[in-house]
Structure formats: C-alpha cells, structure tokens
C-alpha cells in the first residue's frame, strides 16, 4: 500500500514540477484583460472536468473577493456552460452530445469574453466544437489538457497542458484543479492588495 501511495504522489509531484508556467501566466493575463473590459468567462468540460469547472466558477465569482466583498463594484463574471441541466439534456437529447457546450455558448458569446475549456484528452468533440466556435469569433481560449494535449493544445491561446500517459485522468484532473486554484489565489491576493491600498 505504501508503495502505491508513494508512486502516485511521485507522479503528481513530477507533474507539478513541470507545470507550464509561461502558459499559466498567459492565462492569468487573458483573464485580467477580460476583467478590465467587463468581459465574461465561460468554462466547460465533461464529467470530472465539468465538476472542476463548476467548482472554479464558485471560487472565482465569490471567493476571490471574499475578504472585501463590499469594496469591489466590478467582479468577475464566470459562467459554467451549460448553466442549467435543462440545457445539457435538451441539446444532448434533441440535437446531439457534441452540441452541449457550443449550443449555449452561441447564445452568450460576445467579443469581450474569454473561454476556458477543460479536456484531459484534449480531444473531446463537444469541447472542441465550442473552442472552434470561440476561435472563429476571435475570442481568446484558455485550454487545460492532459495526455498528449490533443487538438485543444493546438487551438488554445494559453496552452495549459499536463503531459501524462494516455488515460491518466487522475493525475491530470488533480493538477488541473491545483492550477485553477492557483489562479483563484492569484486574483484573491491581487484584489486584497488593491482593497488594502485604498483603505
């Protein structure tokens, strides 16, 4: 049992050591720019990645501003897609599963927005459909991928790729969660700093 735990954590540590730091910094800049122009952030993925997206939206819209909730009139507008179960099932059942993200995204997307796509394989067809739509609208895309990065790594403007063996969802999803929390913490520190400077 100990060996197993050691091996798993070694893999996680190895991934953390090799984080794509420049690409994460680019992602932070993309989010900063969206904030400055009151743009929205749409985030999506399948299964575990959808759960990560949902978790991140909660942190980003609220936890980032937690320490000074009344001082920031402008906040982030992060939205997980689809935002209702009704939309997931309507698009999937009536049209097809490849439409569950791009369908709602078409309703919402404006030029000032940004997109965060999460796909461990980087090849989920429904994620790629939405990313291709965002690209056609010249909207910046932050892509979190694993394995060999897949098509998402090619398409994304900020290529947050965790290189692993094919199928290693456990490490990839874990590291994706760490990176998104890193981004949450960065902005929390930033807004704390701004608020404390004012008072």
């Amino acid at each position, binding site marked *: 049992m100990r060996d197993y735990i050691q091996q798993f954590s070694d893999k996680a540590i190895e991934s953390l050591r090799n984080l794509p730091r*420049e690409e994460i*910094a*680019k992602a932070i*800049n993309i989010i*900063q*720019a969206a904030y*400055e*122009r009151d743009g929205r952030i749409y985030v999506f993925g399948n299964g575990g990645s959808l759960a990560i997206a949902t978790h991140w939206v909660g942190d980003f819209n609220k936890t980032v501003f937690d320490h000074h909730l009344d001082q920031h009139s402008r906040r982030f507008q992060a939205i997980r897609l689809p935002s209702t179960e009704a939309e997931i099932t309507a698009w999937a059942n009536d049209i097809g599963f490849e439409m569950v993200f791009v369908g709602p995204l078409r309703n919402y*997307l*404006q*030029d*000032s927005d940004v997109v965060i796509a999460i796909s461990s394989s980087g090849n989920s067809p429904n994620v790629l459909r939405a990313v291709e739509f965002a690209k*056609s*609208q*010249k909207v910046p895309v932050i892509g979190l991928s694993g394995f060999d990065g897949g098509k998402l790594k090619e398409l994304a403007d900020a290529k947050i790729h965790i290189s692993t063996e094919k199928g290693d969802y456990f490490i990839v999803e874990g590291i994706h969660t760490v990176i998104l929390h890193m981004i949450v913490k*960065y902005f929390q*520190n*930033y807004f704390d*700093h*701004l608020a404390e*400077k004012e008072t």
Partner: protein
Amino acid sequence: MIITRAPLRISFVGGGTDLPDFYRRYPGRVISTAIDKFVYLVINRTPLIPKISARYSISETVDRPDDLQHTRIKAALLDLEIEKGLEIGSFASLPAKTGLGSSSSFSVALMKGLHAYQGKKIDKKEAADAACRLEIELIKEPIGKQDQYAAAFGGFNVLQFNPDETVDVEPVLLDYKKRLALENHLLLFFTGVTRAASSVLTEQKSNIEKKIDTLKEMAESVFDFQGRLLSADFQGMGEMLHQGWLKKKSLASNVSNSVIDDLYNAGMNAGAWGGKVLGAGGGGCLMFLVPLEKKQAIREAVLRVVKENNLAEFREIPVKFVQTGVETLFGGNHYA
C-alpha cells in the same frame, strides 16, 4: 451601433528601430505597455441618410469618402469600399499629440470597428496589420509599427520588427505586485507642448545612415530592460531610460528643445532615476522613474519650470497599466 476601443501606450526603449529603413537591415525592437487611457470609436449605420458623417474635433458630413478631410477615415473607407450611410465618431481620454501613440490607437480601433461593420471579426494581429497598412502604405505617414501593435495587443510586450515585415509579439509576464509597484514609481506629465510625430520622424529617417549603430544598440538594450523589468529593478530601468533618452536626442535635432530639456533636467536634479519624452519628441509627455521618497520633490521641481514657462496645458497624468488591447465593446455580433 458598434463601439470599439484601443488603449494608448508608453514605450520605454527602442523607439525609432521600428522604422523600415532600420528594421529591413537589422531586427528592430521596442518594449512598451498599454495604459488605462483609450480612444473609443463609434460606428453607426444610417440607412436613410446616404451620407458619411465623421465627428472628432470637428464634425463633417459629406456625400462620399473622397470629400472627407480626416485622412485616416477617408483612406480606410476608400480601401474597404464603404461608400455611404454611416456615422463615425471618436472619443478619447486624452488630447491628441501627447506622444502616447493615440493616432495609431485611433487607427486600430477604426479598423476593428469598420471590419465589424462589414460583418468580419478580426483578431489583434489582423487589427494591428490593418492599421499599419492604413497609416504607412495608404496614407504614407513616415511612422513605424510599434504603436499599432502596442494598441492592438495590450499589456507589456517586447515587439520585434523583422526584415520580412513580420512582427513578433512577446508578452512580458509581470505579476500584479511588480506591475503595481512600477505604476507607483512612475510619474507621467503632459507638457502642454504638442507636435506631430511626422515632422520629427522625417528628419530622423533621413539621418538613419549615420545613426545605425546607435539604433542597433537601442534595439539590443530592449532585452536588458526586459530583464530589469522582470526583476523589478526600477532604478536600473530609470538609468537605462536616461541613457536611451540621451541617445534618442542625438538622432534628430528637434527631438528635444530648451523647455523640454529644462523640465527633464529639473526632474533629474530633484532625484529621478531617469526618464524620457514619450513619442517622437519635441513635446508631448515626459515620463520619469523615481524613488518613492523623492516623488513629491520631483513633482514640485517640474512644476516650477512649468510656471516659469507658462505651460498652461501642463498636467500630471495618473496612469495604470492595462492588459487589454483593441476590443469591440458593443455590437460585434449580428451587425452585417
């Protein structure tokens, strides 16, 4: 209605190396940042009024693009074959000719907006290239390409101008602590003296042969400046600005004049680490990097020279850096 905007910029090092006479022989390089002052463009379709209205410092309404006085709007409409039935208005946070690149910010926002008007979305690079084409090829302004790229991309960047006309944009990835600290160490003044960049640049262009070695040094020093910026060595950056300013002054006789020199020397004597005139020179804005404890003394020293010279339009400009570049704020979808 379509609303676009593009930020103004502060360029630190390498200005002048973005001119074709230089970068066609050696790669030119500039390090600059976008700031929280913008040029806004509003474009409105007027299907029942077969005219073209342009509203900026004046208002003109004409039957066809050829009759417009505004050279950039005229050239853009002719090039895009837009004939009539629209109004174009521009709004800006600061007056023109401050040396913060506003005329290129205008062009970038204009090209983004006019493409949207035609139902075409263009990205940052396409907007920068369209503005370069408008200003350099169509209107034949003797200017470089740094301002169009700075306005289109936003944030801190090292821009490299290659002999094959391509431009590489390398973002300088600064965290908020360094960004806010640099804002705090920076003083920016509008001198109240204005000039068109083209008058200075025309002389600068004709001197390029003689100055090629100086320009090569300036392009090289961009990497050094970038390193200091990344390590938050603001004093070192200030000293480099000072050296750069001395070099730039040697490029054309009208880069500076006695009032600008007096203002600059007042800031330096009061303890500034370094600074420069922003834009092609001869007027515009003056920037200093300063130790925090000397900030107020430097302000006061500069203000004394302002009084002596009756610079009625002199102002300090509070400035923050922005990551955002050219963007469509309204009406980008469903317009064509």
